[in-house]
């Protein structure tokens, strides 16, 4: 039905009512949408639903990607989380052991990841010997991790002794932060499987 015919029909109804005198107006049956209209509306709603579903999918994928990235970032943070040592010591403390075990899980899932262990010492002790001590701490970490069946060739050690403190100054607060091994991802860091 064309629009002009619809308008004519509407005029006819209004004219009949106006000329009807005192007679009550006839009940006008509302003219429902035509089948064409219904079909168009149906198509529109399908398209809307499809678009919504697509947007939801995209959002979902984005959320998943964000979650994935967050977990990868967490894995990276776990991998590079610093471990600390006792005064004069290169032995792995129990809190360090827990951190290293988390690293080992990630290293197992990521055979391409390689790490450099950077050993440090606090300012006490003499500077040259502290280079040896810092290295011993790095080697100690490598020995621990390699003991879980991970290839030692994935890990390298470098010591800075007391030359690069994390916290400047004297006192146990600073020293405790400075007796440490830091971890640098040297290979396979682009797509870490969390």
């Amino acid at each position, binding site marked *: 039905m064309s629009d002009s015919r619809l308008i004519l029909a509407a005029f006819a109804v209004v004219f009949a009512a106006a000329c009807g005198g005192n007679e009550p107006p006839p009940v006008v049956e509302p003219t429902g949408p035509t089948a064409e209209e219904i079909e168009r509306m149906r198509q529109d709603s399908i398209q809307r639903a499809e678009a919504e579903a697509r947007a939801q999918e995209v959002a979902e994928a984005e959320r998943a990607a964000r979650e994935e990235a967050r977990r990868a970032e967490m894995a990276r943070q776990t991998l590079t989380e610093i471990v600390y040592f006792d005064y*004069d*010591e*290169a032995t792995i403390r129990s809190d360090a052991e827990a951190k290293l075990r988390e690293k080992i899980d990630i290293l197992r899932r990521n055979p391409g990841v390689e790490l450099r262990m950077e050993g440090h010492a606090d300012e*006490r*002790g*003499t*500077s*040259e*010997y502290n*280079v*040896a*001590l810092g*290295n*011993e701490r790095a*080697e100690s970490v490598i*020995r621990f991790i390699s003991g879980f069946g991970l290839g030692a060739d994935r890990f390298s*050690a*470098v*010591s*800075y002794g007391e*030359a*690069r*403190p994390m916290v*400047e100054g004297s006192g146990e607060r600073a020293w405790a932060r400075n007796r440490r091994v830091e971890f640098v991802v040297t290979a396979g860091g682009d797509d870490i499987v969390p």
Partner: protein
Amino acid sequence: MTGNLRWRLLAAGLAALAAGLPSDGSAQDENVIPGVSLGLVYEADYLRPLALMPFFGTGAEGHAAAVEAELIMARDLRNSDRFRVVDSLPASLAGGGVDYGLWDGFGVDLLVTGSVEDGMGGRTLAVELHDVVYARVLEQGRFPIPSASDAGYRMAVHRAADAIVLWATGDPGAAATRIAFSMRTDPADVATEIYLVDSDGENLRRLTRDESNTASPAWAPGGRRLAYTSWKSGEPRIYERNLADGSERMLEPGRAGQQITPAYHPGGGRLAFALLGGARGGLFEYAVGEDCCLSSLGGGRYRNVQPTYSPDGTEIAFTSDRLGVATPQVYVMPASGGEARLLSPYRYGQGGYFTDPDWSPVSSKVAFAGRIRGRRTLYQILVADTKTGDSRLVQLTRQGDNQDPSWAPDGRHLVFTAEQGVYVVDSGTGRIRRLVRVQGARAEDPDWSPPLPPGNG
């Protein structure tokens, strides 16, 4: 020497120690390692009173050079700790010639006269050493010196001062030398570079520009080369610098790994160092002159660092934790490796912490740093005699926190680091002087040069 005099000298030495270093406020007894006797390596002799007559030169520039030379030399002779250098008389009172009676009246035993002379062969500093008591010239010499504006002027005067020490005592002086050490370029930045300073604390300047961590300088015999450790490649490696032309190379001894704490053999052709890295590590010797022939001196799985050769090159003292306790000790072994014997004191159950050995260039004595646990953990400078073992260990410093000793070529003075800078202690008198004031992070690893040859600036 009477016992009384010895005690008075000891007391004077302690007073000098107290004056030279900031007190940490802890009780003195806390600063003595149990079982170690406090004392001096030498029994200080009576210090002969010495004066310098005002030096003279011709022309305004020559005279200025002479006045400057006298000041430099007077300070060198004080720093030699061999004399009691008395204040000189003004030229107007001292007169033109040497009036032995006048100087004798001032209680002077030895008198130094000097003049700057311009001749056919260039400028010279002519000096004479007079015995005032016997009214005669003991020795005289002429030393070529450049103009006072030349970089080599001060070192030329230092050489003349060393000659006077030799004439008066029979022992060499140590004024014509430099000290290399490591220091931050900026107290707020972790980067460290190698610096050089003259033995009198003048002429401080930066040698390296690695913009990394640079440490452990070691002079080659002859003083024309310097080895040191730098992290600039990403891991610590040993570099050798030719001081004449400034050229530098990284040593490639044919074994990968972190390489630290170089030390030259007295012959100059070989260099010992520590290679870090578990079972592959240890102490090694490399023929640095021929660039070949790496040989292992042993060490294996322990931390072994800081080798230092005996004067005849047949033995090496070094630091190791091979005792199996967490702390290091100082050992001595044959220079080709082999069985090591403990040099630092060890008492069962008390590990002690002893590092930084440096073998005297002229004797069987080895200086090192020892940890003292009091209210603060501090380190003091100790000297052991390899001939007698630790029974004659002496402690040279008592105040402050002192590490990294290195002998002067006179085998008597030592340079070391404290919190406020780089210091020199005279093991003969116990006198301490500050060489370089350092603020912020401490200076590290000073190494005292051999006598520097002319032409070395």
